[in-house]
């Protein structure tokens, strides 16, 4: 059954979209990631204009994060103070990102920037995860009994505006989470991701937050950053397809439940290794599209909508 997406302006099969939402939802339930960094490339592979894919994904991640944050809230795994400071940076960063998005679109380089950002981040994160999960598989069973300090102090923690975060048991500069929020906000706007896959490692390794707090706090701030991106993209670029977002959400919410259950049958490092391979696969596909000689070097762009409508890969 075909459905006409009013903003993307193409007809797509409903069950394909529900299935795509379900598949990515299952992956995100399985691996505990938002899935935006997989969904956006898949939407682009489907033929949704990249600008619409990115803006709509922000809208979908918003819904998925609302769904996810409840569970963490009930277990009081959200550090609201940290969340608000991340958020302050995130709002500025995502607003800047949407502006940058419009400018790059005017130059006709937005598709390139999206693709390059994906190649860089997916390859780095995929490789890191693969190495990490490989190591974990080698040394499984061998417990490292060494008692770690609560967190290591690095020079970034000593910047001015030191603040106490009771929930996370930290006393560090507020500039660090604000800066991380800003950077991830830009990514959210340009790549159509929640940014969890950058935010979570940054919170663990840079800020030094307890792992239990990380996912809930990250989801909490992603809600507001993606809400900001959705409204700004809708206002400046008219690229949010709420129809598409809702269809993906329906599939995603169901898929996430399936994924969460399937996750209990697999070991953590196997899961991470598997996810690393998926990430590297998507990355390789995008990279291939960048370097392979296109079928047609020319592409047509309507100046009124500014979305590339045609062109060879």
């Amino acid at each position: 059954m075909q459905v006409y997406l009013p903003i993307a302006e193409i007809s797509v099969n409903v069950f394909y979209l529900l299935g795509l939402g379900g598949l990515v939802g299952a992956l995100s339930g399985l691996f505990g990631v938002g899935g935006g960094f997989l969904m956006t490339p898949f939407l682009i592979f489907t033929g949704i204009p990249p600008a619409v894919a990115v803006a709509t994904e922000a809208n979908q991640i918003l819904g998925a994060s609302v769904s996810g944050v409840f569970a963490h809230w009930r277990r009081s795994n959200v550090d609201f103070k940290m969340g608000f400071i991340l958020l302050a940076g995130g709002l500025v960063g995502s607003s800047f990102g949407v502006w940058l998005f419009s400018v790059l679109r005017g130059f006709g380089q937005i598709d390139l920037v999206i693709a390059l950002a994906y190649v860089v981040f997916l390859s780095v994160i995929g490789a890191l995860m693969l190495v990490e999960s490989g190591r974990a598989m080698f040394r499984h069973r061998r417990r490292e009994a060494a008692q770690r300090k609560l967190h290591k102090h690095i020079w970034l923690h000593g910047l001015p505006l030191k603040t106490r975060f009771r929930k996370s048991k930290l006393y560090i500069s507020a500039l660090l989470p604000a800066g991380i929020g800003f950077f991830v906000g830009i990514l959210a706007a340009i790549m159509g991701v929640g940014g969890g896959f950058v935010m979570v490692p940054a919170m663990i390794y840079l800020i030094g937050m307890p792992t239990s707090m990380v996912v809930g706090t990250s989801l909490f701030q992603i809600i507001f950053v993606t809400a900001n991106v959705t409204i700004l993209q809708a206002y400046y670029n008219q690229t949010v397809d709420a129809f598409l977002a809702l269809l993906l959400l329906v599939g995603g919410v169901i898929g996430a439940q399936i994924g969460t259950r399937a996750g209990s049958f697999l070991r953590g490092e196997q899961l991470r290794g598997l996810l690393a391979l998926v990430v590297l696969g998507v990355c390789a596909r995008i990279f291939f599209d960048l370097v392979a000689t296109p079928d047609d070097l020319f592409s047509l762009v309507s100046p009124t909508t500014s979305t590339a409508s045609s062109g060879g890969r």
Partner: protein
Amino acid sequence: MLAVMFLLTATATARAEALVADLSSHLIAITTGFQGSELLLFGATDGDGDVVVLVRGPEEPLKVRRKDRIGGIWVNREEVTFEKVPVFFRMASNRPVGDFVPYALLSRHQLGLSFLEISAAAEESVAQAEMVSFRAALIRGKTREGLYAPGEGKVTFLGERLFRTNVVFPPNVPTGTYTIEVFLIRDGHVVGAQTTPLIVSKVGLGAEVFLFAHRHAAFYGILSVILAMLAGWLGAVAFRRV
């Protein structure tokens, strides 16, 4: 049956005019389940001659960009803006137009993709030879999207005077006011011509959403946020026991 009635009345009035033609519908409605559309164009002539049908979409500016390889990566570089490009183009005739229409007439009425008057903006600085390849790329791209058709469709005559042709519109047909021109050509001259408008427009929920998203962009954004939050919340409630 109705079409036959139309044809009969058409023949009656065709005595006065050399050519009469009409469409089975003057509106193509793009609904949520739109999968393309097909219209019947029919008419009558007052005697011998060949019929050429030209379907043109509204004109829009269009940018053509060319990629170049920079450090192994394909990047958009040069671009040319064409001012008035019909968003849609189809032609149909009862035999190849090259056989009975003189070159001057083909060119004057833009009968065929190679005669389309699409010109670049005055300030474009691209060399003439380059321009040809950009123009060819435009037509190639439009053809790939299914909005231009390279060949000619078929106009069939029913008997001596009645003719008909089907015009197919793909699912991605752009909205706007189209013109359908029908020419009756006899001995290398246009002896009859008729122009009929056709409206392609989004209707129903999809159209409302599109208009709303463009007219009240900020409100639409806020509404999208609320909808997504509601959907997410519903999901969380529905699967609470997990």
